[in-house]
């Protein structure tokens, strides 16, 4: 029997607001001392009260708009109770019953669609670090605003799961609502998977794989979980509803908590936080400031005839995508070469740490033009391109760099003619010269190579070819 897998994904996105969701302290704790970005509210001191951060509401509206979701004009906060040392109040303020973001739809690059069930605002918890017989609590992250995006079970393969998560990441990054750094945990994914016989209208029992934080692990974990469930069913066993964890090293999911052990969160409307009541005008004013979406960029890049993987690779880096649109709108003939430089060179692993802002659109256009006009060989063009991303070169133009690096192509016929004469006179070239004179034109490429070597790669091979043919008729 054939089986279909059904996947639904919950994604937590940390918002890049200046201050936390309910307190006025720094929300950016990267490289800060533990417990240095903590207010009495985050510390859950008695008598302190949560004060909602308006900027988080605005970012939620942007996020919702980016996902084509309906924004609910009235939404409320609820308390989700559980005990853990990284949760100072003993409850998380979340939106259980009336979330700010309603249903929506995301179109993936492969043209498939995933519906969004809803998305809600909530606060992040702190962080525990475990040592031998004790653990340390860091509350810097406690109170960071999150939106949790809940998809409908519209995904049917590990690859599509990955595509959905990547697209979500792009949408949020382009909306400018998150720093989007997966390594820092800015986006975390919970993947729900079940399998059912193909054509069945009933879904199987699902398992949830918690806290995945790379696209690769999402795809691998989904694939592994599918195989695990398939093996169980083929053995005639049933699937348990449970939470599982993914181990990247062993490439396996392992059971964490069964349905019976699931916590009762005792949800309750939070009496300390008044409801969010928005007007249509307010929402529209925020929504119209939504930056351009990946879909817009994809349409722009269609003019350049890039293949899909190249487009998507560039789209992963909004700076590059914006730059590419800039150059495309300036000169769409010169743009494809720049796109290839981006995807082929800059996005190579060893260059990812470079500051992608360094090369300006006009520098990139100038450089592409130089290659177009044969002033630089395509190899030399690549070298100059990468040197534009060296911070020492920020004040230098591509032409200046090419000169400095001695890469400008030699098109001067007199100078080339002199070099060619020297080469023809060389004893090791004598047999090649004879061959050509005898009509064996294949040997000409050997001579071109020699000329190129002598010119230290600067000679334009086409010109050399032409000159050789004149000299050795």
């Amino acid at each position, binding site marked *: 029997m054939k089986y279909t897998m059904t996947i639904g994904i919950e994604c937590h996105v940390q918002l890049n607001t200046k201050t936390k969701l309910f307190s006025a302290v720094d929300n950016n704790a990267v490289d800060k001392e533990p417990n240095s970005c903590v207010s009495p509210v985050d510390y859950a*001191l*008695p*008598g*302190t009260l949560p004060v909602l951060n308006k900027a988080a509401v605005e970012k939620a509206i942007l996020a919702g708009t980016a996902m084509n979701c309906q924004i609910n004009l009235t939404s409320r906060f609820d308390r989700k109770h559980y005990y853990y040392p990284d949760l*100072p109040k*003993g409850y998380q303020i979340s939106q259980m019953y009336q979330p700010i973001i309603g249903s929506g739809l995301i179109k993936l690059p492969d043209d498939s669609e995933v519906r969004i069930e809803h998305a809600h605002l909530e606060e992040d918890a702190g962080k525990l670090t475990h040592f031998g017989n004790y653990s340390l609590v860091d509350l810097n992250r406690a109170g960071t605003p999150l939106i949790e995006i809940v998809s409908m079970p519209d995904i049917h393969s590990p690859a599509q799961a990955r595509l959905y998560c990547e697209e979500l990441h792009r949408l949020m990054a382009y909306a400018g609502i998150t720093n989007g750094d997966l390594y820092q945990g800015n986006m975390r994914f919970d993947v729900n998977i079940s399998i059912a016989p193909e054509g069945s209208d009933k879904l199987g029992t699902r398992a949830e794989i918690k806290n995945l934080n790379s696209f690769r692990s999402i795809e691998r974990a989904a694939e592994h979980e599918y195989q695990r469930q398939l093996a169980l069913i083929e053995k005639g066993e049933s699937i348990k509803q449970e939470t599982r964890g993914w181990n990247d090293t062993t490439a396996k999911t392992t059971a964490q908590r069964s349905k019976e052990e699931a916590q*009762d969160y005792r*949800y309750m*409307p939070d009496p*300390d936080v008044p409801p969010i009541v928005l007007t249509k005008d307010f929402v529209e004013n925020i929504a119209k400031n939504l930056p351009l979406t990946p879909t817009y960029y994809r349409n722009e890049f269609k003019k350049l005839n890039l293949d899909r993987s190249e487009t998507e690779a560039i789209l992963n880096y909004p700076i590059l995508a914006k730059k590419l649109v800039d150059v495309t709108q300036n000169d769409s003939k010169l743009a494809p070469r720049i796109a290839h430089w981006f995807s082929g060179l800059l996005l190579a692993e060893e260059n990812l740490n470079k500051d992608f802002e360094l090369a300006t659109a006009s520098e990139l256009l100038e450089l592409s033009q130089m290659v177009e006009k044969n002033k630089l060989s395509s190899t030399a063009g690549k070298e100059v391109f990468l040197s534009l991303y060296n911070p020492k070169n920020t004040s230098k133009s591509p032409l200046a760099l090419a000169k400095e690096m001695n890469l400008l192509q030699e098109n001067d016929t007199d100078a080339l003619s002199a070099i060619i004469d020297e080469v023809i006179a060389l004893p090791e070239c004598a047999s090649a010269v004879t061959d050509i004179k005898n009509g064996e034109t294949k040997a000409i490429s050997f001579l071109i190579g020699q000329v190129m070597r002598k010119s230290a790669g600067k000679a334009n091979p086409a010109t050399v070819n032409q000159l050789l043919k004149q000299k050795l008729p």
Partner: protein
Amino acid sequence: MKVANKTTKAVDLVQAALSKIEEYKYYNIFISINADSALQQAAKIDQRIANGEKVGKLAGVPYALKDNFLSREGKTTAASRMLKDFAAPITATAVKKLEEEGAIMIGRTNLDAFAHGSSTENSYFGPTLNSQDQTRVAGGSSGGSAVAVALGIVPFALGSDTGGSIRQPASYNGVVGIKPTFGTVSRYGVVAMASSTDTIGCFANTATDTDLVMSILSGQDPKDPTSLSNFWQNKPKPDQSLRIGLISDFMAEGVDPEVKDCINHCVSKWQKNGHTVENISMPILKYGLAIYYIVQTAEVASNLSRYDGVRYGHRAQDITNLNELYGKSRDEGFMTENNRRIMIGNFVLSSGFFDAYYLKAQKARTLLINAYNDVFKKFDVLLCPVAPSPAFKIGENVNDPLAMYLEDAMSVPPSMAGLPAISIPAGTTKAGLTVGAQLIGARQSDRTLLNLASELAKEPN
């Protein structure tokens, strides 16, 4: 109330209060006393007056603070073992506002731990005695503050009222107590009990003093998003003839006849002053207590979750794992009544019971609010007793939590609706126990209630 000036020294006012604290030590009113700092602040105020500098409206006036208000001054225990050593790094907005007007906090008063109770017997520091009869309870939970005013130690004291915690002890000790409209005074810096009905108010000897203190405490606070913009500056119309509704449901069987006599005595006085009094029955009020003990316990259970022994407060010794840290710290830090409410609250919120209890209670609460709205189309003010009987004996209800909860039946409904309600001295029983009359108004009609109350005092008995 006496305010410091060129002839009345702040230091003398504070000194007098401190010696009375000593005199009435037996009543167990104070958990901590702030003598040195109070005298220093008083000396500073005297100096300012001598220099001809401007001083606040309450310059040099000593006051007592219910020990669930946070302040950098001393410890905030909430009368619990959980917080017995807790020194707060922040100061409650209410305390700050009084400070700015020159009032001087001379000590922190006793309460039921975490304000859970109606007698101040649930305190980790032992019960406070009633100001008129030392064998009886002070009422609660703000018992210490009520007795401090009743015995003349301070002209006013701060309290908090979630379901009657100011009004009932005011009634039991013969002083004025106000629970203002929900949101009138910032809750910032006050140990939360039940967030949706917690209010900050005060005790004083007269409606005028109460009005002065409340005018200072009121106003919106950016640190409390549920606080209301200041409405205290809006003056009610003077000498207006008011339509008073006497809630007949609370003048029926089960209410002490002497309590009813006191209320009826007030009725005739107000009628003489040109107000009309008419009976009104509100059958929904009989559900008030049930609604309250579901919603309040749910919020209590939630609000007390933060006391986990991790960051501050009591932490059990010799623990070996996380569950023990939580379990033992909370077990040792909370009193029986705290635990009872945590259990009930978690029960009514738990999956499978939420709809039947919490959700239903919230729906009933909406009906209660609607019923009040209807009644206030016909009446300006509602009148009823604060409690069915005068102060009971210490220990009388300790083993009967239901009887203790029934003490709250009349004070709880306005709390659930966020309405202002005050307790004013309405007379004494033959045994010499005071009885309070409760005036309830529509939202933000607090000053109308105080105006009406001040008429009683003007009329010579």
